[in-house]
């Protein structure tokens, strides 16, 4: 006796509601990346390192404000601030960049992402954006703190205005640092599936390139070499940019605009390579 095969209706319903689309997915990735960078939404152990770094950078800002309140002298200007904490920022990046991208590679979760409306470029840009935002917050947050502290001790409204302009200048410098540091770090981390390897590679690239740049500067004496060599170091490139825009760092001679161009090319280049890297992903 053959029976009729039938699928029963047990009330299964397809989702017919609103689907928020690609933009929402990309924004969520960005927000998630930012949370991962600061250890939010994860266990206490994951919070230790980022919050120590945040503590240290804030401490420096607080000390500067305190000294300003006591003696009226600003030992570290807004624009000087990022360079003072740049090493710490590099260590932060060496830990966070792998956390953002290397883990997905190691656990092979990329197919999960790419089989959904999130595009390849969206993923890459969202991760990059999250890291840029994290580093920017790390640098600009204390600068804002310095402004608030200074604003309270300012003599009058024009003093506050001057502080505000200083802070905005500092923000611009922080943006340059954030863009340069992050684009290089994420690119390096995206080719390494082990976090330790990625962290090591980032530190090696940063430190060796700085060493080489430092050397070339020393060799260059007063000539053009000393003005051009800083471009090789991710620590000094934003300083060169700062000199071009505000003239407050080392002497860049006539090469100011070149610094701007190189910064642009570096960031754009690293970003494009990052997007290209995720075009072809194999397990």
């Amino acid at each position, binding site marked *: 006796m053959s029976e009729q095969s039938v699928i029963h209706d047990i009330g299964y319903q397809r989702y017919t509601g609103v689907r928020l689309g690609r933009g929402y997915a990309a924004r969520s990735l960005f927000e998630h990346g930012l949370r991962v960078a600061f250890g939010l939404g994860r266990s206490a152990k994951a919070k230790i390192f980022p919050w120590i770094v945040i503590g240290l950078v804030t401490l420096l800002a607080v000390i500067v404000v305190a000294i300003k309140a006591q003696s009226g002298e600003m030992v570290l200007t807004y624009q000087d601030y990022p360079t003072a904490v740049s090493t710490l920022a590099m260590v932060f990046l060496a830990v966070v960049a792998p956390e953002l991208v290397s883990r997905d590679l190691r656990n092979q979760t990329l197919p999960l992402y790419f089989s959904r409306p999130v595009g390849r470029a969206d993923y890459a840009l969202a991760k990059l954006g999250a890291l840029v935002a994290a580093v920017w917050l790390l640098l600009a947050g204390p600068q804002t703190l310095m402004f608030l502290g200074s604003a309270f001790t300012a003599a009058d409204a024009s003093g506050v205005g001057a502080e505000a302009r200083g802070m905005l200048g500092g923000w611009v410098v922080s943006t340059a640092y954030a863009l340069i540091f992050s684009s290089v770090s994420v690119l390096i981390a995206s080719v390494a599936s082990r976090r330790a*390897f990625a962290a*090591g590679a980032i530190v090696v690239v940063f*430190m*060796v390139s700085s060493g*080489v740049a430092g050397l070339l500067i020393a060799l260059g004496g007063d000539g053009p070499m000393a003005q051009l060599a800083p471009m090789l170091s991710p620590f000094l490139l934003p300083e060169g940019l700062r000199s071009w825009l505000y003239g407050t760092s080392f002497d860049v001679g006539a090469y100011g605009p070149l610094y701007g161009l190189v910064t642009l090319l570096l960031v754009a280049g690293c970003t494009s390579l990052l997007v290209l890297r995720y075009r072809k992903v194999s397990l």
Partner: protein
Amino acid sequence: MNMTIAWITARGLFGRRRFLLLLPMPIILIGITAVGLAANAPADELAEAVLYGLGVATILPLVSLIVGTGVLGSEIDDGTVVHILAKPIPRGRIILAKLAVAASVSAVATAVPMFVAAVMIDGVRLGLAFAAASVAGALAYSALFLALSVLTRRPVLVGLLYVVIWEGLLSNLVAGTRTVSVQHYVVRFATDLSGSAWFETTVSMAVAAVMTVVVTIAGTWLAARRLRSFSVAGETS
């Protein structure tokens, strides 16, 4: 010291991608020295910047870190260490084999370019001094990073913090911390062996020698001790 373990470790090291990271550094060191000499830079500045700044302070610790955490850390991470541990071999011998490989590879990878660069700058005596100092430094660093591999689950991170923050920043700012900084022992060895007056460090030869031995032995002993109580948790990873 177990030859089979050393052989497996060496094969594992040369087969991994992270090893490629080691290649550009010696080349950069020598290349930069050549550029400096071609630009007629004064020898003392060149030595300070290349041999100390790039060589001792950056390349030596980073190479030792990459190799030292690679010889045991990655095996612990992916679970293959069980193949070595499930054998009737004293844990101390396992650690010694790993240390021998890590120290040799780091030493060769740094001492050779340091020798070449130093000879180019100021002759054979400086070259030999820096080569010897690099070997001592590689040994101490390797023991340190090997111990970290067994003690923590993220040895590269802790090692990086040590190199960048402790040795990079603090030891140059706070004189007291230099007695616990391998970088300064290496500088002391290089200075005294070469008779050169170009490098400054507040650590005396006696302290440097003793501390290098202490760090090496302590690191090895600690690693072996912890390896004896190595546990594998419940279900997979």
